[in-house]
C-alpha cells in the first residue's frame, strides 16, 4: 500500500515538474522565417457584411498574408451564409458558387486553406489557419499556371487565357476554377459597437468564369512536358470597378477538392 502511494506521489511530482512551460514575457513573438518553395496557397474566408466578428478575422488573415508574402498567399472573401444575406443598406455580395462552397455551415467567419478544411465538413476559425497555411506553403508545387487577361473597356468584356504546366510527371484528375475578384469595395459592415458605413471590403468573390467546379485540365497520366490551355470570358457587371478587379485561378484535385496552386492577375 505504501509502495503504491509512493508511486502515485512520484508520478504527481513528475507531473508538477514537467507539466508547466513558462514563456519569457519579453520573448513571446517568433522571428519570421520565410517559407521555402514556390507553391502558393488560397485562403477562402467565408464572411458576411452583417457578421460582427468578420472584420477582425479578415484582418488577422491579411496579417498572415502580409507576413508570408502577398505573392504566396491569396485570400478570397466569399460572402455566404445567413449573415451575408442582403438586408437594408448592407451590400449584396452573395454568389451561387459561394453558397455551394459554404455548404450549409452555420456561422461566420469560417475559413478553409486550399479548400481542405471545408470540403470534408470541418471548419476552421481564423486562429487555426496559420499552421495549415505554413504547411501548405511547404508542399511540393505540382503545377504552374500562367494567366493572360484581355479587357475591352467598351463592351466590358474580359477574356482569360490560362496555361497549366505540370512541374513533374503525375497521374490524377485535376480541374481548374477561374474566379472574378473585386477589391476595395466600400460599403456597410457590422463591426463591434455598430455599423461601419465606409468599410473597405477586400478581395470580394464575384463569381466564377467557368462554373462552380471549373473545367477539367488533366485526367489520367501527365508528364512534365505537357501543358493545357483554357480560355473563358465574362462581361464584367457595370456596377463593378474594373480597375479593382482581378482574375484568380486555381487548379485542384477533383477527387478530394484540394487546391494545388493558385495565381492572381489584374484584369487591367
Amino acid at each position: 500500500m505504501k509502495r503504491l502511494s509512493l508511486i502515485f506521489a512520484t508520478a504527481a511530482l513528475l507531473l508538477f515538474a514537467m507539466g508547466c512551460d513558462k514563456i519569457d514575457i519579453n520573448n513571446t513573438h517568433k522571428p519570421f522565417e520565410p517559407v521555402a518553395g514556390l507553391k502558393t496557397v488560397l485562403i477562402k474566408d467565408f464572411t458576411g457584411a452583417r457578421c460582427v466578428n468578420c472584420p477582425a478575422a479578415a484582418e488577422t488573415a491579411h496579417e498572415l498574408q502580409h507576413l508570408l508574402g502577398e505573392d504566396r498567399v491569396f485570400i478570397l472573401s466569399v460572402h455566404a451564409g445567413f449573415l451575408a444575406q442582403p438586408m437594408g443598406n448592407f451590400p449584396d455580395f452573395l454568389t451561387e458558387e459561394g453558397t455551394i462552397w459554404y455548404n450549409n455551415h452555420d456561422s461566420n467567419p469560417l475559413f478553409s486553406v486550399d479548400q481542405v478544411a471545408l470540403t470534408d465538413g470541418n471548419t476552421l476559425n481564423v486562429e487555426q489557419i496559420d499552421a495549415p497555411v505554413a504547411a501548405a506553403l511547404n508542399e511540393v508545387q505540382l503545377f504552374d499556371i500562367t494567366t493572360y487577361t484581355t479587357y475591352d473597356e467598351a463592351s466590358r468584356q474580359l477574356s482569360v487565357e490560362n496555361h497549366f504546366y505540370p512541374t513533374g510527371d503525375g497521374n490524377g484528375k485535376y480541374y481548374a476554377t477561374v474566379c472574378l475578384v473585386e477589391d476595395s469595395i466600400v460599403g456597410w459592415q457590422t463591426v463591434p459597437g455598430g455599423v461601419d458605413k465606409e468599410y473597405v471590403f477586400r478581395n470580394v468573390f464575384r463569381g466564377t468564369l467557368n462554373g462552380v467546379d471549373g473545367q477539367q485540365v488533366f485526367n489520367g497520366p501527365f508528364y512534365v512536358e505537357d501543358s493545357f490551355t483554357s480560355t473563358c470570358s465574362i462581361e464584367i457587371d457595370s456596377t463593378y470597378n474594373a480597375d479593382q478587379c482581378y482574375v484568380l485561378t486555381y487548379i485542384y484535385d477533383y477527387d478530394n477538392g484540394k487546391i494545388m496552386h493558385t495565381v492572381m492577375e489584374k484584369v487591367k
Partner: protein
Amino acid sequence: MRKHILFVLALALTVSFRASAQSFLENSQVSGSFQTDAQYYMRDNGIGINDLYGKKLGINGFGKVNYTNGNFSAGVRFEAFLPEMNGFRSELNGVGLANFFATYDNGFIGMTVGDIYDQFGSGLVFRTYEEWSLGMDNSLRGARVVLRPAQGVTLKGVYGRQRFFWYPYLERDMGAEEYRGIVRGVDAEWDLNQSIPSMNDAKFKMSLGGSFVSKKQEDLSLFYYIPENVGAAATRINLGYGNWAFSTEYAYKINDPSAINNFIYKEGRAILSSLSYSQKGFGAVLQVKRVDNMSFKSMYTGKQNDLDINFIPPINYTHTHSLPSMYTYSTQPNGEMAAQLQVNYTIPKGTALGGKYGTKLAFNMSQVNDIVRDSVMENGHMVINKPGSLGYTSKFFAISDHRFFRDINFEIDKKINKDWHVTAQYINLYYDIETIEGHAGAPVVQANIGFLDVTYKINKKQSLRLELQGLWENEVHKGYEYEESEKKDYQKRGDWAFALLEYTITPHWSFSIADKWNYGNPVEEYRDHYFTGTISYIHEATRVMLSAGRQSEGVVCVGGVCRTVPASSGVTLTVSTSF
C-alpha cells in the same frame, strides 16, 4: 481407463464452468437508455424562415448500454446525427461509437480504460462531462486510476485526449495532434472525519483536497511561442459544523495564450466559495466567485464550447419556465466577479399564512460584474489585452462597474387544497446582451418578468395546468427608435406574453397548447406568435413526445454553457426509453 479419466475431468470442468458462468450471469446487471430527437423543418415566412438551405430534417440520437458485474463495469455509447438538428455544431454530423469504457474497482484500487467522465473538486481545473441538450462531450479517452490507500483518503490520476466531435484520437491518425493536446491530472482528497476515528461522529466536519492538471499540445503557431505544457493547480477545503457548511476552492493556471484570451501570457486565477445554513423549513446559501483568465482548453486555438478541460460553475438561479429562461447567463471565463444569495423559507403548516399544507417562499439574488483590468507596459507603451503581451494586471478584490448580469427573484409555492396548487414568481433582470450573446451595440436587457403556474386536479387521474407569463422590458419596446441596419439585433427584444394550457391523464397522456408572443418588439415584423401543440405519451420508462409549431430564436444553457438555437418551424419528435 485414461479415456474415462479424461471424460470425467472434462465433465467436471464443464459443470464447473457452467456453474460459474451461471453465477457470473446471475450477478450481472445491464442498464441503458436510448433517445432520438428529430425535427422536420418547414418554411415559415411569418417568422422570416424563407429558405431551409436544403435541410428539411435533423435527427440526433444516442443509445448507451452499461454492464455491471460485481467490481467490474463496462459500457458503450452510440451516437447518430444524420444530420444534426439546427443549432447544433455541424461537426457533430456523423454516426458511430462515441464512447466506451471498462472499469474494475475493488474499493482499494479502481482502474478505468476508455472514455472517462470525472471531476476534481468543483471542476475549476478538471471536469469532463456530456450534455446531450448542448451537443457537448469533452470526455477524456485514456486511463484513470483511483487509489484509496487509507480510510478517507482518495488519490486519482487521469491521462488521455479529449473527445472532439468525430476527430481521431491517435497522433498517427491524420491531424489528431493538430486539434488538441493530451491532458494529465492528479487529485488527492482527505476526509478527516473518515480518517481519524475520534472525528468519525464529530459535529465538526472537514475535508481537504488538491489537484494538478497539465495539458501538452504542440506549438503550431507562426506568430507566438506557445507553451507546450500548461499546468493548473487547485486547492480546496470543505468545513461543516452543525447546520453550517463552508467550502472554498482556489485555482491557479500558468501562462496559457489562446484564441479565447487573445493570446495574452497572463496567469489565470479563480476562487469559488460557498457558505450555507440549513434547518427544518429554512435554508440560506451565499456564494461568491472570481474568475480571471481561466479558460483552460486542450486546444489553444479553440474558441467555442468544446475541449474545455475545466468547468467554471455558474452561481445563478436556474429558471425553467419559458420567458424567465430566455435570458440565461453564460459564464465568461476571461473574467467575472459574481455573488449569489439564495434563501428558502417554508411558512409552517397550521399557521394563518401557511394554511393546511404550508407555504414555500424563495428569494434569490445573483449579480455578475467584470473584473478590473489595468494596462501593462510593453516596448515602452501602455497596452491592454494586446496579443503577445502579459495582457493586463488585475487587483484581486476590485470589481468593475461593468455589470454583465443581475437577477433578483422571489417565488411563492402554495398548495391551496387537495385540488389546487399555485406557483408564482417575480424576476427583475439585467442582462448585458452585448457581452453575453455578442450582439454588438445592442442595448442592455432590463426587464420585469412574472409568471403564474396553476395546477387543478380534476380527479385522481386528470389534471389541468395553466401557465401565464409576461416579460416587460424597461426601455426596448414598441416605439423604441432603432437604426435600420441594427434591426437584426432586436429579433427577440421587447415585451413578451406566454400562455400554456396542459391537460394530463395520468399515468400515460399529456396534451398541451402554448403561444409565445413577442407583441412588444420594436420592429413590427418581429411581433410574431410562436404557437406550439404537444402530445406526449409515457409508458413506464418510455416517453414519446410529438410537438408542432414554431420555436423562437434563443439560447439553451446548461451549467453556464450555452448554445444558440435559431428560430424554426415544423414538427419535433422525441422518443426516449431506459431500462
